[in-house]
Structure formats: structure tokens, C-alpha cells
């Protein structure tokens, strides 16, 4: 049977002593660097990439996959402990993860993130092994109009995340889209947009910088403004790791998240980025206690983290077969693979099955290592929180400055960090949530690109988005979602519509 054959081949490749060692080193180093505030997965992978140059192609890719997963998990750790999302898909983890940390449940959040990711990884690996090849063909059916509708749906998911005002979150999403236009417009041959004559802005705003400033520095400024003691993390950290009842409560979220992540991850484009947002929306809608979301609901961490990991695995399919990266991190992975002599294309699965399946299986191995490395380490991370805030926050600031500098070896970036920090603080003062802005920012250029392409191909016919069946279906789902999100708010006290947290 194909399924067992694939896995067998992959296992033969991935489970050699040297490849396991590479995987382990990758996971360890990726996690340690990824945990530093100011260094998200993008920076971590770029910094650690040179380590892989001296190895054989398969070994290098396996170590790279290990670094990728380690960096992802390290990013989740920073998101939960310090409210700094390292990458677009950690933005959702920040919401309930940080709330849990503030309640003294940081260890539980970290633990459930690791466990959920592992379960998702196992299921996703089996899924890919079973249906990987035929699925690759579905992805090609997507037209530009369908891409557009998919991403629109993703943006609406982001709006539904808000536990404050929906209107304000909508505004933030649009602001994110607007911010993404800053810089040079490639499609119209280098038109400069909204750069105000500044050379620095010509290359646009860097995502990591925006995230670090809005969330990291902004959070610090917010904490400094609070007159009460921000020492709530000492609130009886009795349980470091999730209890069995925690796991039972999250199991549904984990399985649903895995399903969502697996399917969205296969869709080329931003499916993988959207999946944690989708999972969060679903969990919030299904939950019997939706008001807990945003204030430390464990499903709000378990679901999105599982979706994340599942999508991270399945998005290798369009990545390797169509060469379409779902995010900046995946673009880096493509670059690294090309350096090793692997050009993505529809035949990669057939021309280099040892490599493809070896990577898939080693991803599972990486998940295993992550659990082994990280569950004990959770105690170390939680102990870090006990450092008095008056010493912790300057450390975070300096790390963020260093991280900002390493993006482009430019001190201008560090100055922008201050700007974004003040912006993030202003947002929190006016009760605007920054998460939708980040998603809007990430998806902005792809949305615009597909909007343009759809209009050009349909020769200006706006109805094209409704004529294509896939696009129409996605738009209907989006509309239903939007109505569902706004209506309960309308029914409750009308005075509270526009009030923030």
C-alpha cells in the first residue's frame, strides 16, 4: 500500500543516527534562540541557516526542519510569556496564552501548546502520507478570485477574534491593509506608495519590527502605566504542567484545530497563516463559555497551536509541489532548499521521494523531540517570570533592540521599534486590539495582488467573485461569519457596542 511504503521510505531516511542527531540539534538550538524576545522564527531561521551549509542535503533539510519547529515553539513561548508574537501565526496564541500567563497558568499554556502541537503533528503526518499526492492537484484549481475570497474570509476571522469592539477590530484590520501598501509597489513597476519621500520606507515595513513594537514594547509601556503591582504571576503556580483534566478539556479543541489546520494548510497561499485564526473563531463560537475567550480559555491556546502545527506540516505539500510559500518563514525554507539543490515543482514527490518523505517523517520526529525537550524546560521558562518586572522589562527592551538590529543590520529599524512601541501603547489606551492589524498587514499584499489579478482577468467585471463557485462559497461563509459575530453584540446592551475591554 502506498501509504505504508511512503512512511517506510521516510522512516528509513529520517531514523538514521546522524539524521536524528541533526534533528535534535536543530530543535534544541531553534527553541533556545526562538525563545529570546525579539527573535521570532524568521530571525531565528535566518541566523541559524549557516549551520546547515556543511551538511549533506537531506541532513541539512532535516536540521532545518528541526530549527523551524524549534523556532515556532520558541516563538509560542515568547508569545505566551511575554505577549510578543514572533510570527503571524503566533498572534492568536498571544491572546489567551498571555492571559493564562497573567493568571499564573503559564506552564499549563506552554504545556498544552506542546501537547496539542504534537498530537496535531502525528495526525497530520499520517494524513499527508495517505493522501498527499492526489491533494496536490486540488490546489491548482484555485483561481485568483478564490484566493481573494479565501483571504477575505481570513480577515473576517481576525475580526471575530476581538473580545472588544468589533467595529474597532475591523478598523484595525483595514489599517493593517493600508500599512501593507507602504513601500514600493512591484506590480506597477516600482511606484512608491505612502513613503513620504523617505528612503527607509521604500522597502516597506518589516513584520517582525511591527510585531515587536506593537506587542512587546507596547505591552511594556502599558504595564508601566499601571499603578497596581504587575506581580500577578506569583499567584500560586501550583501546577506547572497541564493536568489530565486540562488535557481532556482541550482534546476537542486540539482535534478540531488539527482538522482545520490540515485542510487550510494545503491551500496554497495564506491558508497556513489563517488556520490559527480560523481555529480560534470556531472554538469561541462552539464553546459553552465564550466569555472566557480573551481571558485565559485553554481552548484558545490548544486549538490554534494545533491548527498551526498541522498547517505547518501540510503546507509543505504546496510548498514542495508548487513552490508557493504560505508565509515569510516558508519563503525562507524554499530559499534554503534551493540552496541545497532542490527546486520545488510538481514532480518533487516523484523525482526525490527519499527527500520528500524523509522530511515528512523527520517533521514528526521533530515534534517528538520538541515534547521531550520542552516539557521539562517549561519549569525553567516559568521560573524566568519570577524575575522582578523592574529588571525584566529593560532586558526585554534590550533584546528587542538587538533583534530589531539583526533584521537588516540597521539602526533605523531600532528607531522604528520606538515608533511602533508608542503606536502599540496608543492603541491599547484607545481600546484597539493589535492582532487584527497584524493579520491585515500580512495578508495585505496578497489580497491586493489577487484583487488586481481577478479584475484584470475578468476585464473589470466585479461579479467575478460571485461567479466562480469556490469564491462564491467562501464569500457566503464570510458573510455568515460576519453576521454571527455582530448579531449577539447587537442583542446585548446596545450601550456597550463601542466600548473596549
Amino acid at each position, binding site marked *: 500500500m502506498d501509504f505504508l511504503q511512503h512512511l517506510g521510505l521516510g522512516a528509513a531516511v529520517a531514523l538514521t543516527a546522524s539524521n536524528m542527531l541533526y534533528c535534535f540539534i536543530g530543535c534544541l538550538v531553534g527553541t533556545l*534562540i526562538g525563545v*529570546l524576545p525579539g527573535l521570532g522564527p524568521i530571525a531565528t531561521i535566518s*541566523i*541559524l541557516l*549557516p549551520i546547515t551549509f556543511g551538511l549533506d542535503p537531506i541532513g541539512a533539510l532535516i536540521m532545518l526542519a528541526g530549527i523551524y519547529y524549534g523556532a515556532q515553539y520558541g516563538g509560542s513561548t515568547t508569545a505566551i510569556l511575554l505577549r510578543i508574537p514572533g510570527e503571524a501565526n503566533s498572534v492568536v496564541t498571544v491572546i489567551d496564552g498571555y492571559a493564562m500567563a497573567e493568571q499564573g497558568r503559564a506552564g499549563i499554556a506552554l504545556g498544552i501548546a506542546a501537547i496539542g502541537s504534537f498530537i496535531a503533528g502525528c495526525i497530520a503526518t499520517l494524513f499527508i502520507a495517505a493522501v498527499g499526492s492526489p491533494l496536490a492537484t486540488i490546489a491548482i484549481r484555485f483561481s485568483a478570485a478564490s484566493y481573494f475570497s479565501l483571504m477575505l474570509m481570513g480577515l473576517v476571522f481576525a475580526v471575530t477574534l476581538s473580545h472588544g469592539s468589533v*467595529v*474597532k477590530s475591523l*478598523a484595525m484590520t*483595514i*489599517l493593517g*491593509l*493600508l500599512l501593507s*501598501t507602504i513601500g514600493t*509597489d512591484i*506590480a*506597477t513597476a516600482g*511606484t512608491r*506608495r*505612502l513613503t513620504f519621500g523617505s528612503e527607509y520606507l521604500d522597502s516597506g515595513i518589516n513584520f517582525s519590527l511591527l510585531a515587536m513594537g506593537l506587542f512587546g*514594547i507596547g505591552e511594556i*509601556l502599558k504595564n*508601566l*502605566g499601571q499603578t497596581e503591582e504587575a506581580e500577578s504571576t506569583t499567584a500560586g503556580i501550583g501546577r506547572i504542567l497541564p493536568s489530565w483534566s486540562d488535557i481532556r478539556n482541550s482534546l476537542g479543541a486540539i482535534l478540531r484545530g488539527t482538522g482545520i489546520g490540515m485542510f487550510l494548510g494545503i491551500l496554497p497561499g495564506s491558508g497556513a497563516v489563517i488556520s490559527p485564526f480560523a481555529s480560534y473563531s470556531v472554538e469561541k463560537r462552539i464553546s459553552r463559555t465564550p466569555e472566557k475567550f480573551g481571558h485565559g480559555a485553554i481552548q484558545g491556546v490548544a486549538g490554534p497551536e494545533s491548527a498551526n502545527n498541522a498547517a505547518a506540516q501540510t503546507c509543505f505539500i504546496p510548498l514542495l509541489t508548487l513552490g508557493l510559500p504560505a508565509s515569510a518563514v516558508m519563503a525562507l525554507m524554499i530559499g534554503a532548499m534551493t540552496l541545497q539543490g532542490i527546486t520545488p515543482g510538481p514532480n518533487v514527490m516523484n523525482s526525490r521521494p527519499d527527500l520528500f518523505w524523509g522530511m515528512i517523517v523527520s517533521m514528526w520526529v521533530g515534534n517528538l523531540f520538541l515534547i521531550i525537550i520542552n516539557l521539562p524546560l517549561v519549569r525553567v521558562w516559568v521560573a524566568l517570570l519570577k524575575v522582578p*518586572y*523592574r*529588571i525584566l*522589562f*529593560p*532586558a526585554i*527592551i*534590550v*533584546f528587542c*533592540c*538587538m533583534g530589531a*538590529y*539583526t533584521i537588516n*543590520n540597521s*539602526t533605523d529599524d*531600532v*528607531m522604528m*521599534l*520606538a515608533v511602533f*512601541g*508608542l503606536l502599540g*501603547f496608543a492603541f491599547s*489606551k*484607545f*481600546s*484597539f486590539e493589535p492582532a487584527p492589524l497584524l493579520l491585515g498587514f500580512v495578508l495585505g499584499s496578497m489580497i*491586493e495582488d489577487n*484583487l488586481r489579478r481577478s*479584475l*484584470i482577468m475578468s476585464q*473589470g467585471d466585479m461579479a467575478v467573485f460571485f461567479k466562480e463557485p469556490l469564491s462564491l462559497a467562501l464569500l457566503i461563509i464570510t458573510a455568515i461569519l460576519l453576521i454571527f459575530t455582530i448579531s449577539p453584540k447587537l442583542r446585548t446592551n446596545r*450601550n*456597550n*457596542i*463601542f*466600548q*473596549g475591554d
Partner: protein
Amino acid sequence: MERGYIVVKIDNASAIKSKHIKHYLTVDFISGAFLIIIGAGAIVSSANLELGQLARPGPAIFIWLNSVLLAAIGAALCVFSTFTEPVYLAQWPVRGILFVTAGILSFSLMLHPLGMLATCFLSFIISGLATAKSRPPELLVSGAVMALLCAGTFALGLDLPIPLFPTIF
């Protein structure tokens, strides 16, 4: 729930006027106003870009769409802010903002001339002063530890090309 039309029998006319205006400056109203300004600003700054036609969208279309939507939401916020419970801006932590910004800016200015060790040390201390609860001896020691940690991780561990020591001497 009060609207702004309270008739107060005071002799001082200006007191009544300032009470009116401040009453409207709620968080929602100011945010709405800002959104309108940003939307309008974006449209104005991209006035030199082409809109193009529907069949051949130009670079400005996306900006326009978003700016108009943003301004519309801003206007809605402003209007609805008069119907809801007024929430006003709380105090801003001036010291915090000042020292954190100074810390970050000083980092960017000092890094090249003074090298990583000195920069990390100094910006740690400057940022640390952002809270009134800071203790100078603690700051000095932690700053030194931090500088060494950064040097170890970034320069030695990750081999990044940042000068450790001052380059202006």
C-alpha cells in the same frame, strides 16, 4: 444617561462651553477622529498615484478603498460615541514613555560608535529608569550581566557582525 444639553445656571459662560467640549472628547470620539485623519491623509499622500480603471487597477485603488472604509468607520465611531456611555482617557505614564523611548533611541544612536557591550549596558540602565521602583545598584549589576549575555549570545554564539567595543577611540 446624560446628553450635553444641561442648562446650568452659572454666571461664568466659558465654564459652560468647556464642559460641553470636554464632554464630547471621549475615547471613541478621539479614535474616530484619528481614523478619519489617517484615511484622509492616505488619500492625500497618494494623490499623485493613478487610480486606473476597473479593468486595469492602478496603484492607488487599494489605498483608496481602505482609506475610504477607514474614514467611514471613523465617522461612525464619532457619531455613535455620542450615544454611548462616555469613557475618557486615563492618565498617561509620562516617565515610563520618556525613558523607554530614550532607551530605545539611545540604543540605535550608540550601537555603532560605542559598540555592543557599552550600548547594551547603557540602554538597559536608561530603560530601567522608566519605573519609579528602579534601584540604581540593582540596575548597574543587571545591566552588566545583560551586556555580557547579549555579547555572548549575539556576537559569540551567533557570530553576528556587531562590534563589541567602542569604535570611536
